[in-house]
């Protein structure tokens, strides 16, 4: 096994571990924000380590550049979407704590609820 292959093996294994850790966190963590935290680890570190590990295997220069571009896009997209989701979760938590409009359950009594709105 050459040095490059050993490098690949180490980093890809680390990346796979972070994906596994992200999955465990997503499934086992108690609330939405910590699940999001676990997901971001898999997103950035997991994919980043896999990309770093694959760099020695890629064809120079375009394969390498494409991999790096992909990782940059993934970090950008992952970070922004985590921000979007966190904002949504936060807004929901704020509404929950102030008890905003508890009567708007969708499944509770849709027909009656709808009639109220139509006639009010």
């Amino acid at each position, binding site marked *: 096994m050459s040095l490059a292959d050993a490098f690949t093996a180490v980093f890809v294994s680390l990346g796979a571990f972070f994906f596994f850790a992200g999955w465990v966190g997503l499934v086992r963590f108690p609330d939405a924000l910590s699940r999001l935290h676990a997901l971001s680890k898999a997103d950035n570190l997991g994919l980043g380590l896999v990309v770093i590990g694959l760099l020695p295997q890629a064809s120079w220069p375009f394969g390498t550049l494409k991999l790096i571009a992909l990782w940059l896009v993934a970090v*950008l*997209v992952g970070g922004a*979407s985590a921000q*979007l989701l966190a904002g949504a979760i936060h807004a929901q938590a704020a509404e929950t704590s102030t008890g905003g409009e508890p009567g708007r359950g969708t499944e509770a009594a*849709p*027909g009656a609820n709808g009639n109220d*709105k*139509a006639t009010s």
Partner: protein
Amino acid sequence: MPDVSLPDPHWADLPLGFALLVLALWLTWTQRDRAAVIGFSGYGLLVAIAWVRLGSMDVALTEAALGGGLMGLLLLTAAARLGEETDQPAPGLPARLSIALLCLGVTLVLAAVVLGLPSPAPNLVAPVASHQAVTELGNPVAAVLIAFRAVDTMLESVVLALAVIVLWSFGADRAWGARPRALHLGPPSPALVFLGRLLPPAGLIVGVHLFWTGADHPGGPFQGGAVLAAMAALLWLARLGEPPRVSDGLTRLGIVVGPLLFLLIGLAGAVIADAFLDYPEALTKPLILLIEAAKTLSVAVALALLVAGPPELPGPMPPRQSGRAAKGVTP
């Protein structure tokens, strides 16, 4: 069987197929529309990976661009505007059971057909490969799309243009000439504006790359156009730009330039070369590239406009919560 299949161990196939079926079952039976639509965008990703396993990279790229990107955008914005509808009255248990049995029967017949396909599988790999050199294209799928089944592809791009016309006709009469507003969903959050500024340049490069590489590798006008359309939809959603007015002449030209150029070159082929949609030998490659470039543009414009929706007048949208309530009145 010749060993040209992917050397991947087949461990991934069974879980992937199982996950597809479980997800399909879940999004048929789950309670809320919005949750089902989110599940459907995950379903699109899974199908794209299944296409890789089936060895069809071209289809996988199309499915990823449409099913993973645009379809989720279209259906989630629709779910947001429609709100949660009330459940429609379900028929009684006997009716449901008989329908379930019917569907099971369809599945069993189809599965039997799939498992009982003739064993030296009939295929057109060799005919395509032997005539592919004429088109100077390295990608057999592109050769089929642009040369061997060119009539299908041309009609398909006409269908796309017609779909936009039909979509626009869904708008209210008084809104004719206005901008489409299906993606006007309130003030965008800062993170969305950030993505809207940074992602489209990268998407532009990827879209053009997919179009250009499509001649010799998987990719092509549909894949590239779908990526470009997704980026345009992102720009409109982040309110960094506005969809063009439906009366805009340049937009209309963009929709029809692909099929029109295809048709004109095809008609010219009837005169110069031997038949309708036949290309003169010396000009085959440049003509194909020209058609594909125009088609990429048309596909991008048409798909983006399909997501943007029919023209609407500015002003507050009808409230979705009450729209849900009104549902109960109509039937």
